[in-house]
């Protein structure tokens, strides 16, 4: 299948190889949560809710009393993919992604400022069209900022691939399931440090470097957008407060 048209250079959905899908972020979608956000990357829609810092529910899980305990749960809604999913959570992929999201956010949250407490991050995929992992991390960042949890930096994530000898930014489901390499990068935007890096399928090293750079560029663009959303939200709340 031609993922990149050799004549026009367009991809299956009409984008250019280094073009990201349309982003949309909104905070405050779950009213009962301390912080929440909805993030869309093209057709992938993800909702994140953050509860905390609150009293630790399960004392036995607490490892380090001087820091907050961060828990994360990733689940996909049964209606999120084309065929109805039978196991929304608890399967291996969801467990691994929960672990990945938790460790990525933990790298940024200043847990030592909130000892003896726990922070719960719940991410739910409403529509899956490739790049769910990245959308979840972006939504979690928005939700944590909305909840007023101190963070070192904004964490954003984006994926990139390599099909038809072209590096492609922000793969959708069709491009993802083509069997080509898929690189997901998560960065701390201001400090320009890579915190999440996952790759599968084979790539020669130089190509890998190009693809990783492309994904990092995508992350920086998302970081600019997220910053705008948060700034707008803060200004609005402050003005309304009076």
């Amino acid at each position, binding site marked *: 299948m031609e993922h990149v048209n050799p004549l026009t250079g367009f991809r299956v959905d009409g984008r250019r190889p280094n073009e990201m899908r349309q982003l949309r972020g909104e905070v405050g979608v779950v009213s009962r949560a301390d912080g929440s956000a909805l993030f869309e990357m093209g057709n992938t829609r993800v909702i994140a809710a953050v509860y905390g810092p609150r009293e630790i529910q399960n004392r036995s899980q607490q*490892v380090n009393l001087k820091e907050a305990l961060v828990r994360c749960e990733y689940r996909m809604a049964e209606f999120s993919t084309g065929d109805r999913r039978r196991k929304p959570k608890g399967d291996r992929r969801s467990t*691994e992604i929960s672990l990945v999201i938790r460790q990525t956010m933990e790298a940024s949250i200043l847990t030592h400022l909130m000892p003896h407490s726990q922070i719960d991050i719940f991410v739910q995929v409403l529509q899956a069209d490739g790049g769910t992992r990245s959308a979840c991390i972006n939504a979690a960042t928005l939700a944590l900022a909305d909840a007023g949890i101190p963070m070192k930096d904004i964490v954003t994530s984006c994926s990139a691939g390599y099909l038809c000898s072209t590096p492609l930014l922000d793969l959708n489901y069709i491009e993802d399931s083509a069997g080509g390499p898929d690189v997901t990068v998560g960065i701390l935007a201001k400090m320009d440090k890579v915190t999440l890096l*996952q790759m599968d*399928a084979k790539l020669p090293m130089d190509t890998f470097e190009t693809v990783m750079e492309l994904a990092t560029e995508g992350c920086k663009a998302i970081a600019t957008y997220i910053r705008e959303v948060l700034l707008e939200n803060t200004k609005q709340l402050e003005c309304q407060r009076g």
Partner: protein
Amino acid sequence: MDERWFPTVNEREFIEQAFESGLRVDGRGPFDFRNLKIAFGREDGSAEVELGETRVMGYVTAQLVQPYKERPNEGTLAIFAEFSPMADPAYEPGRPGEAAIELGRVIDRGLRESRAVDLESLCVVAGKHVWSLRVDLHVLDNEGNLIDAANIAALAALSTFRRPECTVGGDDGQQLTIHDPDVREPLSLTIHHLPIAVTFAYFGDGNIMVVDPTFKEEAIMGGRMTVTVNSNTDVCSIQKAGGEGLMPSVVMQCLRIALLKAADITNEIKIKLSQG
């Protein structure tokens, strides 16, 4: 009750200070692997790997199943990892925890998605019968760096595994006969390349990194990155799940170091395979 081992402040400072002087507590250089020993079992497809004091056993079994609808002429390969409670007081029997699932998936991505094992040769009757390989990895002793050791165990087990030969025949040309190993020689798998996992542990602000961390080094590390590369300078898979942030230049540097290490280990494995 959490039975995990927590480092004392003294131990943590000792190891960190040693790193700052460029030393490791067990005397290795920062990019040295521990001693690798591979022992093969009596049956085909079983191997036990010792990386320093970490011991992992790999065991391969095959079964005839119906293929996936999307891939009717490919066999399947699945990796299952189990952390036995005898490896570490923190491991509980029963369902695999997060770490076991992560290990299974990292090795799975490195082996399956990089097409190290030829799955098309496992097809017997397209759309109906294919061989399904199952690699079981049992962790027997956890002294750090389980991913690398388990990966080598999986590779060693797959390299020595032989599946029975089967022919299609009978009256309607659809009947499947699986031949006994005594009657017909079993066939070994076609392995295109050996993807080797190299794990880096980060300390400090991401400026100190070491290869093949021991258990104690893992307990105090700031982050971990596992890179799976092969001797053809291909990057097969990378797993850096959060943790301390790294500069992209450091990531590329690690990849280059991993390529060198992978070449060494591939040689060692090949030597051991030819011996065993």
